[in-house]
């Protein structure tokens, strides 16, 4: 299986953890992340998620800021496994 420079495999496994960085407090509530937080961008119909491998969850916020080009108001980063985002095959 081909490996990327990061050491992660090129294919995203069903049980691999992904994170979605949130930039507005209205994108989640005390119960859950709201559906709007996962809507694709109308420009390319894609949703950006990050593969974070074994990175500790508390280190993800800093990575989110970097991913957003230095954006200072990353509000959180729900982590979930790939198959939940992909849906049933």
């Amino acid at each position, binding site marked *: 299986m081909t490996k990327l420079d990061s050491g992660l495999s090129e294919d995203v496994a069903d049980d691999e953890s992904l994170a979605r*960085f949130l*930039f*507005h407090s*209205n*994108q989640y*509530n005390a*119960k*859950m992340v*709201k*559906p*709007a*937080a996962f*809507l*694709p*961008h*109308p*420009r390319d119909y894609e949703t*950006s998620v990050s593969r974070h491998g074994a990175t500790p969850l508390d280190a993800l916020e800093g990575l989110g800021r970097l*991913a*957003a*080009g230095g*954006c200072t108001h*990353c509000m959180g980063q729900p982590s979930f496994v790939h198959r939940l985002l992909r849906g049933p095959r």
Partner: protein
Amino acid sequence: MNFNASTFHLGVPRPRWADTAVSPEADAVLRTTLKVWAESFERSESISRRRSRAISDLRGMAVGCRSENWDGNGAEAISAQAVAHVERLISLWPAALPLPELAPEPDGSISLDWITSRYRLFSVSVGRSDRITYAWLNGTDRGHGVEFFDGEPFREECWTVWGKL
């Protein structure tokens, strides 16, 4: 007559005729009337406060997302038309029903969500146009649709789905 301060709450004025001598039956009617009056006053004030809070939340969100790229991924700014549509929908929303939670969408629309749990929710997307889209999840059951905002909060089909959740 045994009226005391607790009979009149929330600033409902004590009417002059409340001090006149009346029969026990009339007294009971008077007490009930005042209670209903006070409760109605309290309820309407509470609804008005809930709506004000929702509109304040909406405007705060619009300010937070007034510039493009508010999500660091090229999202469009929340449009003034979407804010106006949502304000109108909130003001028309039936008083007895729960108001939605709001969330910004990457295309500048606003999501109105009624979330019971992660498996039971109803979500409406309101944008620049009068076309609103909705999607719902109820356990393993799910669906979506499109409606046109014509001055009423929802049309029948949307209400039917909403009511099930």
